[in-house]
């Protein structure tokens, strides 16, 4: 399985995701944003961080970079694309995913372990998880408050395009278990063809017992299938 991690100036989870991918036996390459050619890959990852300092709007400037044109082309021809945190923000800025990520409800950066529930476990990203499985993940963002219009929201719910929702330890999805104000507690979504996943939590931070836990491992092993 070949993966490519796109690196923008200001990306800072690029090494973390590369370590996780390599640990899971992906053949990974780092792709600098100024490159115009994307190596042939089965999976493209847009990592977390603060591309271009998150200045203007998070993800906005990366969304205009040269390499993104190639990512869009690959995505449209069915390549798997995973955007984590800032990567999710970039995907919404390019239009590959709908909706947008607003400032967190209480306007503060949040880093903590939270829980998410696997809503759709029938995709290339999630088939190793059980439906409704509760995962402990780590979030770290200023703008993770997912928002979209009512029509799209309905589409997401109806067509099973919601990947994860924030919940508590026991799986309850409610206002208390919503860390950032995201609409319907949404933590991650798919595009309609389900080959693109954008998520705010960092699965690459959950692949090593000494550091945290291994709840992120199955996302990567799902992709290997």
């Amino acid at each position: 399985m070949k993966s490519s991690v796109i690196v923008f100036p200001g990306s800072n989870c690029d090494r973390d995701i590369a370590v996780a991918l390599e640990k899971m036996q992906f053949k990974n390459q780092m792709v600098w944003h100024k490159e115009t050619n994307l190596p042939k890959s089965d999976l493209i990852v847009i990592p977390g961080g603060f591309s271009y300092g998150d200045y203007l709007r998070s993800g906005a400037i990366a969304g205009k970079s040269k390499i993104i044109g190639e990512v869009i082309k690959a995505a449209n021809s069915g390549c798997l694309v995973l955007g984590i945190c800032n990567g999710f923000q970039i995907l919404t800025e390019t239009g590959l995913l709908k909706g947008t990520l607003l400032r967190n409800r209480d306007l503060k950066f949040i880093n903590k372990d939270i829980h998410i529930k696997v809503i759709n476990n029938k995709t290339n990203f999630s088939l190793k998880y059980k439906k409704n499985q509760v995962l402990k993940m780590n979030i770290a963002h200023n703008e993770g408050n997912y928002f979209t219009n009512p029509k799209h929201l309905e589409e997401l719910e109806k067509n099973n395009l919601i990947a994860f929702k924030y919940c508590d330890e026991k799986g309850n999805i409610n206002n208390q278990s919503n860390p950032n104000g995201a609409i319907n507690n949404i933590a991650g979504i798919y595009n309609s063809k389900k080959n693109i996943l954008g998520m705010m939590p960092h699965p690459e931070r959950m692949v090593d017992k000494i550091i945290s836990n291994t709840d992120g491992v199955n996302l990567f092993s799902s992709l290997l299938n």
Partner: protein
Amino acid sequence: MKFSVTVTLKKDVLDPQGKVVQDTLSNIGFNSLKSIRQGKFFEIEINETDQSKAEKKVNEICEKLLVNLIIENFKINKI
């Protein structure tokens, strides 16, 4: 030629910043506040003497980069 651009969130888009500011203000005793919404402001200077051409350029800059048209509106003014 100089322009100002104001970018505001569309009506139906949640404005967490505006909301927090509003809550804070009412906490510190500003009760007469009816609503507050936050946006962005740009001052753009452009090397172009023809106003309509210049305005077109600024418009293009807004649409291509400064503004997320899905959630934001914008207005250009010459200054």
